[in-house]
């Protein structure tokens, strides 16, 4: 298979396929991941090719899925769990936070929990309630979990393979509204970056836009629009939310002197709060303006007819850029 166009769904599918081929201990588990191929078809064809022993349709019980995945990991397996939608992960939250995240430390390092939990997350697809949530802060706040969120098909492919290969539990957040974006990918190649490295996606000198997952594309569009007005915005795609590549962030902000963090999750207590604090600590004498944040509001994720008002878009990002530049 040479380089060709992949949607993010296909890129993820190919990553799962390669992981199943490369390690006989790799398992896929989740609701409807078998014959159906998942509600987003990320596991399409895997049940047919690898069988029900390795691509496991589970009962509809998220705590049970993660809890048994932990048990399988203790037996030497490498489960890749699919949570069908972001809002359905909470029944498994206890198993993730109290067991999966802490068991390696509890055992003083004598057992490993190589469990990957894939979650289609965030909004923008016109869905009903519980299908559009951004809960990354809950997971990033928990020591013992690694949390990553790719923004494009190529990163999605390599980061998933890296997550599955990791000996730590990884929360793998898939920006579902980017599932159908396309890019050229060569699965026989090699990843450009380590799993927890950020990328400067667009260089600029006036201000740093920091985003991850679905908001990277919005920030790239904002930077392109700003360029028409003569502003050179740098865009940093964080990729990893725990750990965060603060070195790449700080290096960028020291050059630009200004930073705006963008995510779909509510601004209050979100990733942006942590990033703003860290940037202030590391780059205080380089800053020309306070670090600003653009994100969702402190309200339940709204009905789809008004979700556009909730979600940061190009104009809200540029509005924040203007406010930062005004200092």
């Amino acid at each position: 298979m040479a380089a060709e166009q992949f949607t993010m769904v296909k890129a993820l599918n190919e990553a799962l396929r390669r992981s199943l081929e490369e390690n006989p201990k790799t398992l896929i588990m989740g609701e409807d991941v078998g014959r159906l191929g998942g509600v987003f078809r990320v596991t399409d064809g895997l049940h047919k090719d690898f069988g029900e022993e390795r691509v496991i349709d589970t009962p509809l019980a998220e705590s049970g899925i993660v809890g048994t995945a932990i048990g399988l990991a203790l037996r030497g397996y490498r489960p890749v769990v699919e949570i069908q939608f972001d809002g359905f992960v909470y029944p498994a939250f206890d198993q993730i936070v109290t067991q999966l995240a802490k068991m390696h430390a509890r055992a003083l390092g004598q057992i490993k929990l190589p469990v990957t939990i894939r979650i289609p997350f965030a909004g923008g697809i016109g869905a009903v309630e519980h299908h559009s949530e951004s809960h990354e802060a809950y997971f990033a706040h928990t020591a013992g979990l690694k949390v990553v969120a790719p923004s494009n098909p190529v990163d999605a492919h390599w980061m998933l393979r890296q997550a599955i290969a990791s000996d730590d539990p990884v929360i793998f957040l898939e920006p579902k509204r980017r599932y159908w974006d396309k890019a050229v990918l060569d699965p026989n190649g090699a990843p450009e970056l380590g799993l927890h490295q950020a990328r400067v996606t667009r260089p600029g000198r006036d201000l740093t836009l920091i985003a991850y997952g679905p908001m990277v594309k919005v920030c790239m569009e904002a930077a392109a629009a700003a360029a028409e007005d003569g502003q050179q915005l740098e865009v940093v795609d964080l990729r990893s939310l725990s750990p965060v590549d603060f070195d790449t962030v700080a290096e960028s902000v020291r050059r630009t002197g200004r930073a705006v963090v963008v995510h779909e999750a509510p601004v209050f207590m979100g990733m942006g709060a942590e990033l703003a604090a860290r940037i202030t600590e590391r780059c205080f004498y380089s800053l020309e303006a306070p670090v600003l944040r653009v994100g969702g509001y402190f309200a339940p994720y709204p009905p789809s007819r008004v979700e556009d008002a909730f979600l940061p878009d190009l104009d809200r990002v540029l509005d924040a850029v203007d406010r930062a530049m005004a200092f």
Partner: protein
Amino acid sequence: MTVKKTARAPKAATGARRSPAEAAQPALVQLLTPEGERVEHPDFSVETTPDELRSLYRDLVLVRRFDAEATSLQRQGELGLWASLLGQEAAQVGSGRAMRSGDYAFPTYREHGVAWCRGVDPLNLLGMFRGVNHGGWDPNEKNFHLYTIVIGSQTLHATGYAMGITKDGSDDAVIAYFGDGASSQGDVSEAFTFASVYNAPVVFFCQNNQWAISEPTEKQTKVPLYQRASGFGFPGVRVDGNDVLAVLAVTRWALERARNGEGPTLVEAFTYRMGAHTTSDDPSRYRIADELESWKLKDPIERVKAYLVREDWADAAFFEAVEAESEQLAVRVREGVRTMPDPDPSSIFEHVYAEPHALVDEERAGYLAYAASFDSEGDEN
């Protein structure tokens, strides 16, 4: 030791053909009465040699002595907390001795007797109660998982592990330990569902000790707990949890079912928590002394002793030797706990992840620099 049990689910145990009145007071599987009389059961039996019976008696006594020592150590301030197994020795030793070396146990925080049977050094159990670790033993060394404090969570880990055994084509089996309180947890129901659907080789071993801290079993269930199994499609059995022989027989039967590909079994070991929930608890606030007195008459150790004496399989010298051994164990545990070192504070940062994590590394370096700053101040003085 041999166990006779046909593969079919015992009629008497499922409750399916019993009247509601009978179902409310189900019979226990019992092979040794509280008076130490050996009795037969239509579905379960076990043959033990005098050596094996003496060995079980030794287990029971040593485990109780260890437990008493740990309670004392808590009273002396050497442990922060202790969850006593007093009264549940037979349930734990009977089930623990039913396992083979390749089997795996997933305990709660009270399975000290099972740990003993698995060969885990009792001192290892005390680290978490002293506060020097959260467990810390290597679970794979003796196939005894770490104590799980959140109620019922481990039943899912046990089920997943058992699913892995099936995938490996092994005939090992798993025991998931939990209690009457845990039976109300969603995770336990989900474990029943997964185990049933995947036909996992797991025995759900519920020690119904009648009390979840202050709440009696009536606050957890309207039906006898073992009957829950039938709704999930596997057999359930209620066994006299204070009868080590009956527990051994029933658990072995359940493990054999698992090995033979017949799937999960629920064993409800009907027993009694003779002590407090933990050393922080005060049972006098919620239960009457008469209840405790009635259960004292069903003591799990006295009946084995009576049986050994009745059969003339043990003499005074044997009982004295076990007593002496238990005192030696207590001394070893006492000294071991008192000399158990506190971990270095920087160990907080160890094993958070299996692989490097930049934030943990940064915070470790920050902590070490901060701690070192006191050393240099001391030097200046």
